[in-house]
C-alpha cells in the first residue's frame, strides 16, 4: 500500500466572537478606514433586511429570505471583488448585492414580485438571484470561461449555501472549472441550515471546503462571521483565479439567525438555545467591538450612520412603492428579442384583459 495523494483543509479567522484579534491582520485589511467601511456596509445590509421583513409582514413585499447574521460573508466577498468581476448570487446575498452596487429599490422590486428588480442599473453583467438552488453554478463556469477566452483579468464569483453543496449541478460546475482551470471562486455561505435540514444531515464531509478536493482544486474554510477573514481568504482566492491559476472554493462558517424565509417558522426544527448561542457569534458585534476598542468607531458614529441607513432605505421603499406597474403586454416583450409572429395574438389578448383567447 502506498500513499498517492494527500490533502488538507485550513481554517482562517482574525477576530473572535468578542472582537479580540487572534492573529496579525493581513496587510491590506490592517486599516481602520477600510474596516469602518466594512462595518458600515454590514450595518446597512442589516437595516435593509429589517425593513424588507417589515414590508413583507405588512403585505408590501413577497416571500423574503433574510440575510440576518450572514452580513460578513456578503460584505467580505464584496470587498474582495472588483467592479468588473461578475457575481452569480444565491437568493440570500442581499448584503453582497448591495456591496456590488445593486440599488435597494431593485432588491425590493425583485422581492416584491417584479422582474424589473433584476434589471440592475449596475452592475450590468451580474447575474440575477438563482432561485433554483445551485442551478447557477454551471453559469459561473461559463462566465469564467468567457473571461478566460477573452484574456480578461476578471473573476466569476458563485455564491451558494450549505444545502447547495449536495447538488449535482454544483459538483459538475466545480469539476469542469477544475479541469479547465477557470477563473471562478465558489463561496459557500454555510449558515448551518437548509430550511430545516442541519448541516450534519447535508453531508458526511467534515468540511464543505473539501468538496473542492473532488474537483481537483483547493478548498479553504474561514470564520464567515469575521469579515476580515472572508475578505482576505476570498481575496486570495480571487487573486489566484485572476492570475490564471484556476478555481478555489471558500467555505464561510456563519449562521442563519432568522427564519429560512418569511413563510418559514424555524422554531419548528431548531432550539432557541442554539440560536442564542449563534447570536453570540454574529458578525457585527465583534467588528464593532474591535473598532470601538481602537477608537475608530463609537456610539455616536453608529447612531449617525444608522440614521443615514434608515434614510436611504426609506427612500428606496418610497421609490419602490411608487413605481407604476408593468403593462400587461410586457408579459411578452422579453420572451425573445423579437416576438415571433405566432405569439403576437396572445400578446394582444393579454392586453385586452384575456377577453379573447382564440
Amino acid at each position: 500500500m502506498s500513499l498517492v495523494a494527500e490533502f488538507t483543509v485550513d481554517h482562517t479567522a482574525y477576530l473572535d466572537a468578542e472582537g479580540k484579534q487572534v492573529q496579525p491582520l493581513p496587510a491590506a485589511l490592517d486599516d481602520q478606514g477600510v474596516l469602518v467601511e466594512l462595518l458600515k456596509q454590514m450595518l446597512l445590509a442589516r437595516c435593509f433586511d429589517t425593513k424588507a421583513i417589515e414590508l413583507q409582514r405588512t403585505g408590501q413585499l413577497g416571500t423574503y429570505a433574510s440575510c440576518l447574521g450572514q452580513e460578513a460573508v456578503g460584505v467580505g466577498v464584496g470587498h474582495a471583488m472588483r467592479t468588473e468581476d461578475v457575481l452569480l448570487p444565491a437568493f440570500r446575498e442581499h448584503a453582497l448585492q448591495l456591496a456590488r452596487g445593486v440599488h435597494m429599490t431593485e432588491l425590493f422590486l425583485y422581492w416584491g414580485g417584479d422582474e424589473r428588480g433584476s434589471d440592475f442599473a449596475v452592475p450590468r453583467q451580474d447575474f440575477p438571484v438563482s432561485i433554483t438552488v445551485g442551478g447557477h453554478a454551471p453559469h459561473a463556469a461559463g462566465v469564467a470561461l468567457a473571461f478566460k477566452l477573452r484574456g480578461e483579468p476578471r473573476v466569476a464569483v458563485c455564491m451558494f449555501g450549505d444545502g447547495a453543496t449536495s447538488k449535482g449541478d454544483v459538483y459538475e460546475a466545480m469539476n469542469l472549472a477544475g479541469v479547465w482551470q477557470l477563473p471562478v471562486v465558489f463561496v459557500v455561505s454555510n449558515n448551518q441550515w437548509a430550511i430545516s435540514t442541519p448541516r450534519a444531515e447535508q453531508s458526511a464531509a467534515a468540511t464543505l471546503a473539501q468538496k473542492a478536493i473532488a474537483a481537483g482544486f483547493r478548498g479553504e474554510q474561514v470564520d464567515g462571521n469575521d469579515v476580515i477573514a472572508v475578505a482576505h481568504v476570498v481575496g486570495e482566492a480571487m487573486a489566484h483565479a485572476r492570475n490564471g491559476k484556476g478555481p478555489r472554493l471558500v467555505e464561510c462558517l456563519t449562521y442563519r439567525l432568522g427564519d429560512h424565509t418569511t413563510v418559514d417558522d424555524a422554531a419548528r426544527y431548531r432550539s432557541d438555545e442554539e440560536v442564542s448561542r449563534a447570536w453570540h457569534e454574529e458578525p457585527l458585534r465583534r467588528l464593532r467591538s474591535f473598532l470601538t476598542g481602537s477608537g475608530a468607531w463609537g456610539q455616536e458614529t453608529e447612531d449617525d450612520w444608522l440614521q443615514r441607513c434608515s434614510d436611504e432605505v426609506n427612500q428606496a421603499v418610497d421609490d419602490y412603492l411608487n413605481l407604476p406597474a408593468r403593462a400587461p403586454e410586457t408579459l411578452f416583450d422579453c420572451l425573445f428579442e423579437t416576438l415571433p409572429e405566432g405569439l403576437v395574438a396572445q400578446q394582444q389578448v393579454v392586453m385586452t384583459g384575456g377577453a379573447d383567447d382564440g
Partner: protein
Amino acid sequence: MAEHNLLEAVNLALKRAMAEDPRVLVLGEDVGVDGGVFRATDGLLQAYGGNRVFDTPLAETVIAGVAIGLAAQAFRPVAEIQFMGFIYPAIDQLVNHASRLRNRTRGRLSCPMVLRAPYGGGIHAPEHHSESTEAMLAHVPGLRVVIPSSPRRAYGLLLAAIRDPDPVVFLEPKRIYRTFKETLADDGEAWPLDQAEILRPGSDVTLIGWGAMIRECLTAAEQLAADGIEAEVVDVATLAPLDTETILESVQRTGRVVIVHEAAGNAGYGAEIAARIADQGLYDLEAPVRRVTGYDTVMPLPRLEHLYMPNVTRIIDAAQDCLAPA
C-alpha cells in the same frame, strides 16, 4: 366525519398508507422534523420514526433515484419534490429509469414509487414556485400522472397511487391546498386511477380540466347556468393514461368543449385532449375545441401572475364563444 382541506387530505392519506403497509416510506427535503414546507408530511416522523421518514440532502436527482432503488427492492417510497419547479433534475430518473424498469427487465424488477410535488400558480410565490408542466411528464410512457381536484379525491387518489405497482407522479394543486374543505372519512378507500369524472352534468358545453382549474370550471358552470347554459364539468384526474371514453361521451352529449389548464397552451396536456376529440369525436363537434390556458410565455413573478392564470371570466368567454353561431 371531519372536514378537511386538500393538504390535510394528503397528510391523512400518507398516514393511512404508512399505517397499513410497512413498506411505505416517505422521503424528501424537509419532510421530517419540519413536516414539509406545506406541512403535507406533518407528524409522520413523530408517528413512524426515522426508519420510515427521511429528510434527504438537497438533491432532487438522488431523491428520485433513491426511490427507484427502494422500489426495486420492494419498498413503496413516496418521495416529495418540494415544488414542481425543482422536479427537472429528477426528470432523467423518471424518463430513463422509473418508467422503464419493469419493461427493461421484462417484469423482473419494478418501480412502485410515488413522486409527489405541489404545482401550479396563484399563491404569489417566488420564481419557479408556480409553474405547471404536467404535460412533459404525461408524455412519458410508463409514468402515471395523477392530479386531484379536491380533498376527497386527493385522499383517495394518493392512496391508489401508493398502492399502485407502478410509478406515479402525483401533482398537488397547491393553490387549493387550503382554500376549501370536504367531509372525509379517512376509511382507507382509494379513488380509482385512470378515470375521469363528471363533476357536474350539462348538455350545452363540456368544460374539461384538472387540479385547481376544476374550481374555476365549476364556478364558471354556475355562472353560465345563470345565463341558461348548462355546462358539463369533467375532472380528468389521471392525465396519463387518459380516460378518453368519458371525455368522448361528454362531447357526444354537448358537442362543445373548452379545455382548461394553467400550463402554457403550446404542447400543454389540453392539446392531447383536443387532439383525441378531433380524431375520435370529430363528428360530435358543433364548435371549435377551445383551450383556456396559460400563455406561451414565462410564468411571471407574483405581481403580474393574475394576468397569466386562466380564470372564470376567460372560461365563460370561451364557453360562450363555442355557443355563439359560427
